[in-house]
């Protein structure tokens, strides 16, 4: 591989870490570790395998056809179908963007002591200004490099010397050790945070922004496989540190301040600041991606000119779409809705809508109109079939579990 290409892959992999990790991934992993020690690591592993497949395919679609996943779903299934996943995605985007803005606000609260809702408007303005002035590359690479700080969770997990045998056993699926409803609710939330529909839409849009073509299919596979695995490693780091620091002390995850203790364990008082900065940067990156994704899906649904690499005057409807989405979600934080509760609720809601988003993949990725000779092989189709089955199960159980085990 040529050096230039290698750099591109490296940046792509790093971006995946930034894209992978968000407020939902941190909160659900911390909750899992605090409540059930290592026993939900297998869910992170299965979720990661699903995500690798689920982002490789829209990436391949975009590289070969130059059409995003949202484009293809509308074109192939018609507006009558597409309106439902897009409306559901709208609602989830609205809530998740609120939660991500909340994540940045909480980070600032941890650093300054000033209550989070006072930070909502300044944070929203910073997010909007970065989107307004930044190119896609700038945002993508900025998120990638700053996101490296989250490796603190992996370092923390290693410093704490966890019982590796027990950690390894966590990768084997097992029934709930206690509180089954809470256990399975947490499992579904982890999956909801991992298999985020926005990732499918965003990743394929990003591939078009980056001008990927058929020559980039290997890079697409590498970025999806290595990048998502790296992101998953960080999430496992959060889970393991929570298992080592919070679980023995009987500390549950009711507030972000409690999750901060995960890094205080290994790194002392600096761990507190490290957590706040990691949370802030991760959520800021996720805010950018979530806001842009709203712009992408609306523009692609209606066939507008779109692109973060275009100046605002050259894609006005797209820029107004993400502007309005940031403004609307900010209200959730201004009125003081608890960001952690909002995050966990959004993850469960995401699980409910997943089948609508994932099922069309099976048809589109086998359509020679879009993919020519690069359609799915039988292995990938079998995996997608299993993932769709899994998403249906999750959709059915998510809300009942939310009532039974969410509190």
């Amino acid at each position: 591989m040529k050096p230039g290409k290698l750099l591109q892959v490296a940046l792509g992999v790093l971006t995946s870490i930034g894209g992978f990790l968000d407020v939902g991934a941190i909160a659900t992993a911390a909750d899992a570790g605090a409540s059930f020690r290592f026993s939900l690591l297998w869910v992170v592993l299965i979720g990661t395998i699903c995500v690798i497949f689920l982002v490789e395919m829209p990436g391949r679609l975009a590289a070969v056809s130059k059409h995003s996943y949202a484009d293809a779903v509308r074109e192939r299934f018609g507006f009558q179908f597409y309106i439902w996943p897009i409306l559901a995605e709208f609602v989830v985007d609205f809530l998740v963007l609120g939660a991500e803005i909340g994540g940045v606000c909480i980070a600032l609260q941890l650093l300054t002591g000033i209550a989070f809702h006072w930070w909502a408007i300044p944070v929203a303005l910073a997010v909007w200004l970065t989107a307004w002035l930044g190119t896609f590359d700038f945002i993508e690479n900025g998120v990638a490099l700053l996101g490296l700080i989250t490796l603190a969770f992996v370092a923390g997990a290693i410093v704490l010397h966890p019982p590796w045998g027990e950690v390894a056993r966590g990768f084997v699926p097992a029934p709930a050790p206690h509180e089954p409803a809470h256990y399975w609710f947490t499992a579904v939330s982890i999956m909801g945070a991992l298999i985020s529909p926005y990732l499918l839409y965003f990743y394929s849009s990003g591939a078009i922004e980056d001008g990927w073509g058929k020559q980039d299919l290997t890079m697409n596979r590498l970025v999806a496989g290595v990048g998502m695995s790296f992101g998953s490693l960080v999430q496992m780091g959060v889970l393991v540190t929570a298992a080592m620091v919070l679980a023995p002390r009987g500390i549950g995850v009711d507030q972000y301040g409690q999750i901060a203790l995960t890094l205080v364990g290994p790194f002392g008082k600096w761990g507190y600041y490290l957590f706040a900065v990691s949370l802030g940067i991760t959520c800021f990156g996720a805010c950018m991606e979530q806001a842009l994704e709203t712009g992408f899906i609306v523009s692609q649904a209606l066939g507008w000119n779109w692109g973060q690499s275009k100046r605002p005057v050259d894609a006005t409807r797209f820029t107004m779409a993400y502007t309005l989405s940031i403004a609307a979600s900010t209200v959730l934080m201004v009125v003081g809705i608890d960001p952690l509760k909002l995050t966990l609720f959004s993850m469960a809601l995401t699980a409910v809508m997943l089948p609508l988003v994932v099922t069309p993949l099976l048809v589109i990725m086998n359509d020679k109109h879009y993919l020519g000779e690069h359609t799915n092989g039988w292995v990938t189709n079998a995996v997608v079939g299993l993932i769709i089955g899994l998403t249906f199960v999750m959709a059915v159980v998510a809300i009942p579990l939310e009532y039974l085990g969410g509190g």
Partner: protein
Amino acid sequence: MADDFPDMPENGTRLRLARDVLDSQMVDREHRQSGKVDGIVAELRDDGRLVITAVENGLPEAVSRVSPRVGDWIAALGRRWGVRKGEVYRIPFNKVRRTGIEVRIDVDAVATPLLDWEKWLNDHIVRHIPGARW
């Protein structure tokens, strides 16, 4: 990519309207993204032939395929406050040049209502905000 696909089928060959035209991305002669094909217009001629005359673009048309009543509401809102006045824009079918996964329309979208919202937002909001032309 669209260039990889053949021109519109000649007379007598099969055209899958619902699959290959409806909901496709429209690209104008300057390669601008100009909306999706939200509807297809057909006319029943006196001799009994059904002739496709135009493709349509407009949110009320797309939404009315899901619910005619909601489509009517959106059209009414558009007539009152919309830049396009709730108008569904028709492009004659003889201007539809290619099919495949995109539809090329032989028009200049800037001169049609297709980009009215884009222009209105630019003139009234976006270009007045600092940094819009970085």
